[in-house]
């Protein structure tokens, strides 16, 4: 599966477009990480726990999108976009969408 956020792939030709595929997940942070974060607020710096949390969540959204693309028989997803929205306090929705396509070498 080729994943790009551009409309074309160098050396590849689009044979068939399969339509939009999407995947999402809603994640909440947990209390332990909050306590660590409040300490971090004194000295500043990276909150590794939150970085991991978001990376993990985004991977999950992406995997759900890929599952959809596979079901449609696509071998590439073009023009991929990520988006987030705040659902409720302390939780966020991560959303990935793109156009599934069948591509072949030129």
């Amino acid at each position, binding site marked *: 599966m*080729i*994943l*790009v*956020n*551009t*409309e*074309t*792939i*160098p*050396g*590849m030709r689009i044979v068939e477009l399969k339509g939009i595929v999407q995947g999402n997940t809603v*994640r*909440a*942070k947990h209390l332990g990480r*909050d306590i660590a*974060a*409040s300490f*971090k*607020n*004194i*000295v*500043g*710096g*990276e*909150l*590794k726990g*939150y*970085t991991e*949390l*978001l*990376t993990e969540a*985004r991977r999950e959204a992406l995997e759900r999108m890929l599952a959809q693309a596979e079901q449609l028989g696509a071998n590439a997803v073009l023009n*991929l*976009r*990520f*988006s*987030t929205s*705040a659902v409720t*306090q*302390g*939780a*966020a929705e*991560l959303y990935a969408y793109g156009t599934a396509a069948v591509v072949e070498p*030129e």
Partner: protein
Amino acid sequence: MEGVIVLLVQLSVPVLLLLIGLVVGTTTERLHLASREREFAGMSVTDIRTFGPGADPSKHAALVSGEAVIATDYLKSFLAGFRKILGGELRSYRSLMGRARREALMRLLAEARRKGFNAVCNVRYETADIGGFTGKRGAVMVECFAYGTAYRLETRDSQ
């Protein structure tokens, strides 16, 4: 007399926190990025939607991404609190946002290089809110996510 001591003790905690924030915050900020940014100086990075001239078709393009969540220090949020009364630019938070973006981009470039690419196009930035801004007593932090398409650019000597 006792009242003075109590007042001093009560005052010393925020003053100590401010000092810690000043010292640790500024040093980590300085050490953070400058050296690593130079490392990726040779890579072509654009936010244009198309590939640069000379894209190598033999290696498939791939999605790369980088993410960073960075908290502010006590001094910065203290200064920003003052600034919020007067209005105007929150300079201490501006550098925080900038740092999160730069860090995210660094990680994106590191991933691209690890996968054997030397150029990235269509870089997009995105922020996620997991309660940093909305939570009243939560940590002041910024989340930044960068993603783009990595590809191989033919260098002059390989042409």
